[in-house]
């Protein structure tokens, strides 16, 4: 699971008002090379919740991202490279995603999060 996906997921348990961001529990992180595409990064940037993204990156061991970012930084190659690496190349392979409100844990196994809810959670 890429951090891009983490940034798009939230807990949908019945009664939870703010299920974002999910807290990451790390068991295993892997890196996979992805071809750099600046246009894609520029398109994605406005859709990313930056603080959740920076915190998630730190949790999985990458602390190079600036705490704050705005669109003017998209002109900097250095920034784009870091953004690219954190957004697409780092994968949470094994671990969990924890609902910030209820503490319910959604397991991540073989890089695939399981967001299915039990009957009493829907």
């Amino acid at each position: 699971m890429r951090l891009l996906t983490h940034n798009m997921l939230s807990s949908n348990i019945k009664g939870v008002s703010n299920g974002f961001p999910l807290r990451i529990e790390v068991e295993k992180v892997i890196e996979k090379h992805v071809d750099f595409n600046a246009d894609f990064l520029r398109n994605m940037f406005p859709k990313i919740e930056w603080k959740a993204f920076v915190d998630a990156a730190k949790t999985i061991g990458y602390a190079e991202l600036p705490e704050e970012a705005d669109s003017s930084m998209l002109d900097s190659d250095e920034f784009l490279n870091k953004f690219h690496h954190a957004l697409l190349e780092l994968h949470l392979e094994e671990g969990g995603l924890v609902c910030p409100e209820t503490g319910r844990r959604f397991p991540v196994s073989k890089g695939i999060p399981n967001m299915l809810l039990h009957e009493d959670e829907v």
Partner: protein
Amino acid sequence: MATKVSNFSDLIQRVAASCHDSSQNRHGDEEDENETESESEESEEQAKDEEDKEKYRVLYKMPFRIAQIRLVSSHPEVYEPCDDSFALVDALMADRNNLLEHQPTLCMEVGCGSGYIITSLALILGQEGPGSHYIATDINPHAVWITSETLAAHGVHAELINTDIALGLEKRLAGLVDVMVVNPPYVPTPEDEVGCEGIASAWAGGENGRSVIDKILPIADNLLSDKGWLYMVTLTANNPSEICLQMRERGYASRIVIQRSTEEESLHVIKFWQDLDAQEDAKQMATTNKTASARVMESVLSQFSLLSSWISNSSHSS
């Protein structure tokens, strides 16, 4: 898929048989290509074979690839690519130029099964594409895992999530999906077979095969971006013209990209997109303007009625 399910083992056999036929006749292993190159010795190593195919592709400027059946992973509880899957991929190929121009940033599949569709989409948009990101979901845990194998075998990537339609994504992914593809469970079955464990959830669609489709439509509407497109497979029994009308009420225009009749079923792949006229109609319908709905009804139904008269004509002549 079969349209009437009397018992499961019967259906499984029929599904298996039609999958078998299809994989031989259609997107199977590029047998035809080998035949046209028949001067080369049959008994050569596979690696060499692969190399030749690659050369062939370059030689004849084959512009893009789709997923290959022999590289699609399988599992007894995961739906194998069938006529419906092939129809959807054919629709995406037919619409490829539009898709490239569309420059989707985020593409998504709901119910990815073996991964045949999402892999093909990634390959179709491929090298010339805008660098799209792919997300695929399935309610069946085996399916998402099989999809990851199929993607890897073709050297492409999609983010996979084991979930019910788009549960967990609906908040943050709202309005971001530029292309959504769905081959839903559409076979009419008793309601209690919908969403049960294992392979049955691959086809069981409840009353008129609409249970899962009707859940997907509002979610698709929520996730699609303003320029977003939805491609969906439907069966005649699903009442596709009514689906189009419902989407019209949400401001979507629609077009049949591919219509295909097999011995068992008549499939449509329908494309939906947000359209100003449709939105205008939707507003008017909301204020209960009967003339608008009648006009819309006519325009939506015309594509299907033309089609059904064409089908009945052509079946008479054959």
